[in-house]
């Protein structure tokens, strides 16, 4: 079996996805949570490309483009919010403490 098969790529995507999830769940730093989400998005993108390769179709890459634009936009907004948080009193970017919205 060809090692570079789409199935193997999907496996890699899964591993990356799980790792990203691990990061989101385990890290307390908002910045690193954001990075972990980027990993997960990349994993999804990889999965699309692999699927496209599996079906020999270009739609996987179309979707990749869309994910890319989402990732860019989300990173922009997310980082803006992080900066605002940082400026407005949560300099540690700790996700666990300082929450007012709860209960």
């Amino acid at each position, binding site marked *: 079996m060809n090692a570079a098969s789409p199935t193997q790529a999907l496996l890699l995507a899964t591993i990356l996805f799980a790792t990203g999830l691990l990061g989101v769940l385990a890290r307390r730093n908002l910045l690193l949570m954001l990075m972990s989400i980027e990993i997960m998005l990349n994993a999804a993108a990889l999965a699309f490309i692999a699927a496209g390769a599996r079906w*020999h179709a270009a739609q996987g890459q179309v979707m990749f483009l869309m994910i890319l634009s989402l990732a860019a936009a989300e990173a922009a907004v997310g980082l803006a919010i992080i900066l605002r948080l940082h400026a407005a009193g949560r300099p540690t970017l700790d996700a666990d403490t300082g929450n007012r919205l709860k209960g």
Partner: protein
Amino acid sequence: MTALLPGLPPSLPILGGGIALLLLCIAWRRSEARAILIALATLLLAFASLWWPLLPWPGDPTGMLFVPDGWFTYIAALILLSSAATMIMAWRETGTSSDEFYLLLLLGTLGALVMAGSADMVIFFLGLETLSLSLLGLIAWHRTHPTADEAAIKYLILAGLSSAILLFGLALSYAESGSLRFAAPSLDGQEGPALPLAATALVLTGLFFKLSAVPFHTWLPDVMEGAPTPVASFIAVTSKIALFAALARYFAGADLLRPDAAGTELAIVAVLSMFGGNLLALGQSNLKRLLAGSSIAHVGYLLLALLSPGPFGLASAAVYLAAYAAATSGAFAALGGASVPADIAGWRGMFRRRPALALAMAIMLISLAGIPPAIGFFAKTYIVIAGVSARRIVLLVALVASSIIGLYYYLNVVRAMMEPLPEEHRAARGTPANAGLIAILAIVTVLAGLFPETLVRQTHSLLQPTPIMRQASLRPAAPHDILYRE
């Protein structure tokens, strides 16, 4: 041109045009009044265009990116109306430089419409994320509110997480079937159904997150509390309507009565949502959080309708969506118009201070609780008809039991409003536009409850989302079909 824009409903370009126009206006000179006028006019135009489509809908979604069928038309009408309600609520409530607010609202509405009408994963995904990103801006609108940032970052991270999960699910689905059609994988003729089911599970996570079904609901109370009131209304109403429409579309061809994993998961989530939402609201003293819990519970009821195929299933869901939209919008409008803290203590004695407002709020809550004569009563009855018709006994029991919990907290608010207040002070009034909105919604809620025939007839015939065939992919997958290879 028509070949390039398969199935595009005319309301979408109208919204797009409106957005562009608004952008230009903002670039030219900022003015809140002009912004809201343009936005409302856009919505109105889009609304009108629902009845005069440029392109006739052939009834077959094959090869189309959008499915402008009856279901879409109805949902789009609800989305546009509730967006308009949100805008009226937001008028003079959102502080300075608020014309961008309307821009974002229009963008969100566009996303919602796209989502409700999409037949393709790409389109759906884009709609979803457009809505999501504009919501981010809306949630974080008030720079002075210390909770706005928190709400926004929570929404950002959780929405990102759920988007990733959704995307991964879509990718798996694509990998499995080679089709980007936005429909639940059919399980017929498959050897091992595990992969499609796993893909569905992941997709459902993404949808449930946005719908805030238990256990994916945790963000909703926090975000709604942190967001400006009109935005909370937008999240609770417009966004949910669109997502529910998409969910219904996703499962349009599937047999949900079959005890496979997707049906089971939906049923479990429905039960959890009913109880979870109501129990969550039970312990809340903040009205926004309470309404968040209530909206979670209503998702559960809607899922019951979705899970009850048959002549009443989605028709009842459609009626319920309308009832829910009217009542929830009304409740938020009242919240916004009251100019008091949004906790129960702040609403005490409201019947003495602002009797009309309190009455309207009471009507909305009664409708949400499903008590006659408000429309919520009929809508809930209709959903129960659907459930009974499909013999969803467990779900019905859950509905009854959780509704009783629901009654408690809705009435608790009504009770608080009736309590006498030691000192008689009059609260500031909201804008006349908001007052008018509240009045209209209250009247509609009661009148529709007394005479639901029109609504029923509207929804009775139209409303099955057209199933999207999975195999009707844009490009059938076969080696010889690869047109362009390097």
